């Protein structure tokens, strides 16, 4: 794969280019970017790399039904009670800065993608996964340790008892 940049790239300095491509140079990149420099032009080449996940990739158990075999991997695994605490599973669907992968990139079906999305949001609320860069924190209470309980218990509901002018 090649990307020839003639006029635009000449305007960039060398440092700017490195800064832009620094993220791509990490170990986990699938495409390593190489830069060839001539007198007139700079060639930016994306070299393909083997993914680090490949040796640890798993295949769900074989299914006789053809329709079932086309299902998404999370459906075929059929894990019981996938929850927001299973962050090693949820981590596979987010980037290092905490943003969620798109539906097409994740390779999941719509239902499981929706499930993963809610669970990732819960995990980020409890600070188990890294929060995305523009995550809204409304107050200091968002930075204390919290958890989601299921089934939810409504103990004495102070928010209903106490008048809102005393909320701080």
């Amino acid at each position, binding site marked *: *794969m090649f990307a020839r940049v003639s006029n635009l790239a000449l305007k960039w300095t060398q440092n700017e280019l490195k800064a832009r491509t620094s*993220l*791509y140079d*990490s170990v*986990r*990149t*699938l*495409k390593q970017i190489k830069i060839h420099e001539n007198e007139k032009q700079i060639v930016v080449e994306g070299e393909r790399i083997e*993914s*680090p*996940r*490949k040796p*640890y*990739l*798993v295949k769900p158990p074989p299914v006789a039904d053809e329709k079932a075999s086309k299902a998404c*991997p*999370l459906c075929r*695994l059929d894990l019981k009670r996938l929850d927001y*605490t299973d*962050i*090693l*599973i949820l*981590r*596979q*669907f987010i*980037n*290092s*800065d905490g*943003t969620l992968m798109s539906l*097409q*990139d*994740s*390779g*999941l079906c719509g239902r499981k993608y929706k499930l993963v999305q809610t669970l990732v949001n819960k995990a980020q*609320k*409890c*600070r*188990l*996964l*890294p929060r995305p860069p523009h995550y809204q924190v409304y*107050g*200091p*209470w968002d930075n*204390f*340790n*919290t*958890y*989601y*309980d299921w089934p*939810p*218990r409504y*103990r004495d509901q*102070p*928010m209903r008892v*106490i008048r809102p002018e*005393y*909320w*701080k």
Partner: protein
Amino acid sequence: MSNLTKFRRTQQWLTFARLWYLYDATYQDVFDSAIVIAQYLRGMNKPIYDHVRQDVGNHVVVINTSKVSMPVDEWKWRMYSHHSRYGGGQTWAAAHELHSKDPTIVLYKAVYKEVGSAPRAVNLIRSPTMARLHLFPDACIPPEIKANICDQIRQVQPVLKSLKDYSEEEVEKFPKIVDYPEDYVVK
């Protein structure tokens, strides 16, 4: 006392010995753990427990109280009131405000409530019962207290692990469900 032999006297000291329990409050719900701590403080875990005649309570040492947890947004909703006995002297503070000022006070108040919500005989021994509660915001305990500890109370909830708590090798070697698609650039 004169009728007791030396052996039976020491046996009596043994049955009525006050134990020192340790409780690790990391990621534990404040009010659930307060119920358990109050039971141990009043000695309800013992078969010789008697709420009328005897005080057979234990000591409880709680560590990591700054890491206690509440259900989502309860830090915001849970309010604590205080009255200064002057007119208009009632003030209100949310749980996160109290917790940021003193990381032990939220758990103290929860245990205080649980100890006092018992029959009338307990109210008389409420202050000596609460005096047996030792709260520490972090994991370090003074050595004179640590020397007494002989058992641990089991936690109420699983301790949640964030991504930082796992080692890199553990994260890398965990079985992967899906591979990266082609032409995908990992950020």
